[in-house]
């Protein structure tokens, strides 16, 4: 059975408030799951239940076949977890902290030295290993938090906002690392950065108000966009009327919307009916109308637009 992580009917109530409402999904080895949702949607609460920090009100999570509510220690052994905000013992050095985590995880002797050295080099913190964590920059703290999570080479890696507060270079490095580790692990990352979903995730689950509202590959999600397969073209302002009516005349085009104009050029977006592929028709129509087009491209769809629509509905 390759189902490494299985979540069944997971629910958490705080008083009368339902933070996570009956969510179920499964993740296979090799998948990088992006857990998306607006702030307060229940991402962190769900992750805290899977990692055994919070007890579910109902439902459970199975990690490698072990039920987190019945065998929390077995589950915790198999998971590497970066909690939200990467909390760390600030009076320790990264070297001491990783030593402590090794001790608790029962890694000792040569294996401990190797595990610490390998985590430190993968995450690139070797040169700060003996500085107090409290004195490190936010980026380094985050990296120490990730090093702590990958120390025991876990089968499942759960990272709550791993790139939050990092600069673009550091983000790139962390994403590269996630991609490298992805093939033989289950990785779940929560994020509200949509470009991250595109670059690292093989699958995305969107939650809002504690419920799953979308589940699919990033491409699937983009395909839900109104903009999916729309065609954007740019041409001289003088020819705008002519070209607009030419494109509107195409049967498969639903409507043409005028976008920004600059330097005497206007941008139009032609939305297709039922997400049909219309770029050939549009370029042919423009050619027939004798318009010289400066730029023309088909849109894949925008995640942010889909995200906004599905998380604000309901």
């Amino acid at each position: 059975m390759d189902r490494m992580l299985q979540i069944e009917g997971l629910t958490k109530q705080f008083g009368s408030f339902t933070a996570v409402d009956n969510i179920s999904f499964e993740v296979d080895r090799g998948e990088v799951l992006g857990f998306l949702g607006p702030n307060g949607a229940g991402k962190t609460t769900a992750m805290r239940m899977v990692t055994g920090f919070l007890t579910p009100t109902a439902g459970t999570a199975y990690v490698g076949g072990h039920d987190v509510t019945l065998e929390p220690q077995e589950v915790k052994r198999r998971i590497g977890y970066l909690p939200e905000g990467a909390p760390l013992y600030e009076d320790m050095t990264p070297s001491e902290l990783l030593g402590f985590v090794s001790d608790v995880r029962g890694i000792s002797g040569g294996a401990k030295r190797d595990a610490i050295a390998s985590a430190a080099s993968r995450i690139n913190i070797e040169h700060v290993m003996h500085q107090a964590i409290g004195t490190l920059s936010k980026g380094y703290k985050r990296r120490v938090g990730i090093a702590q999570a990958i120390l025991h080479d876990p089968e499942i890696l759960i990272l709550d906002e791993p790139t939050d507060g990092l600069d673009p270079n550091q983000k790139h490095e962390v994403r590269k690392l996630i991609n490298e580790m992805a093939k033989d692990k289950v990785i779940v990352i929560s994020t509200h950065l949509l470009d991250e979903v595109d670059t690292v995730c093989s699958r995305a689950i969107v939650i809002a108000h504690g419920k799953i509202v979308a589940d699919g590959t990033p491409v699937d999600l983009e395909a839900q966009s109104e903009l999916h397969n729309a065609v954007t073209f740019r041409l001289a302002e003088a020819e705008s009327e002519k070209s607009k009516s030419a494109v509107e005349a195409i049967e498969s085009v639903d409507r043409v919307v005028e976008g920004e104009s600059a330097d005497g050029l206007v941008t139009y977006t032609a939305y297709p009916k039922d997400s049909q592929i219309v770029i050939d028709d549009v370029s042919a129509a423009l050619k027939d109308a004798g318009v010289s087009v400066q730029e023309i491209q088909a849109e894949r769809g925008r995640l942010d637009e889909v995200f906004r629509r599905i998380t604000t509905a309901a």
Partner: protein
Amino acid sequence: MGTSWAISKRELRAYFTTPLAYVFIVIFLALNGVTAFYFGALFDRGQADMQPLFGFLPWLYLFLIPAVAMRLWAEERKAGTLELLMTLPVSTFNAVFGKFLAAWIFTGIALALTFPVWITVNYLGDPDNGVIVASYLGGFLMAGSYLAIGGFVSAMTRNQVIAFVIGAAVIFLFMMSGLELVQSAFRGWAPDLVVDLVRSFSFLVHYDAIIRGVIDIRDMIFFVSIIGVFLFANMVVVDLKKGS
């Protein structure tokens, strides 16, 4: 057990990498000196024993021990490191016991550092060293029970000041329950059984017996039970309040 010890080691290191350990030990020893020699007249009374030092110890511990215990859980909750700790393969018992053990060892080190007084009374006279050993044991057990109570209170809040004040107040109640002040409040209306029960919870009653050299296993069991009960309560509170 290995896990508890890993946690204890981490905690102990934290005491000594921050000024906490040094401030505590220096103040503890200085106040011990003041109370034993000045108020207790350790030299002037002309007796070769350590009674003055051990007599004041419960009162020093009343405000010094909650100061050690207040950070045990409140600090972790506030810094968010509780989530890091409790998502490692650590049981609640491992965490509670490991933290308690580190604090107990630490206060034990501070208590042991009063050894120059022991050497001095042996140099100047011929004390009953059996009583002194019993007193050290009693002091250590009392420190343990104070810490167990303080740790339990610390797990209920993320505010260290509140943990300190409430912890000290609860310990004070346990100390006073054997004294006339508290006893007389019960004697008027409660049956003798209840009055004796309240008295039997007094730290001072059990501790005084030990430092007078009367080593009764029941006094030892009392302190060990207090530690056990409050560590258990501590586990329950940690589990209940983890997420809040």
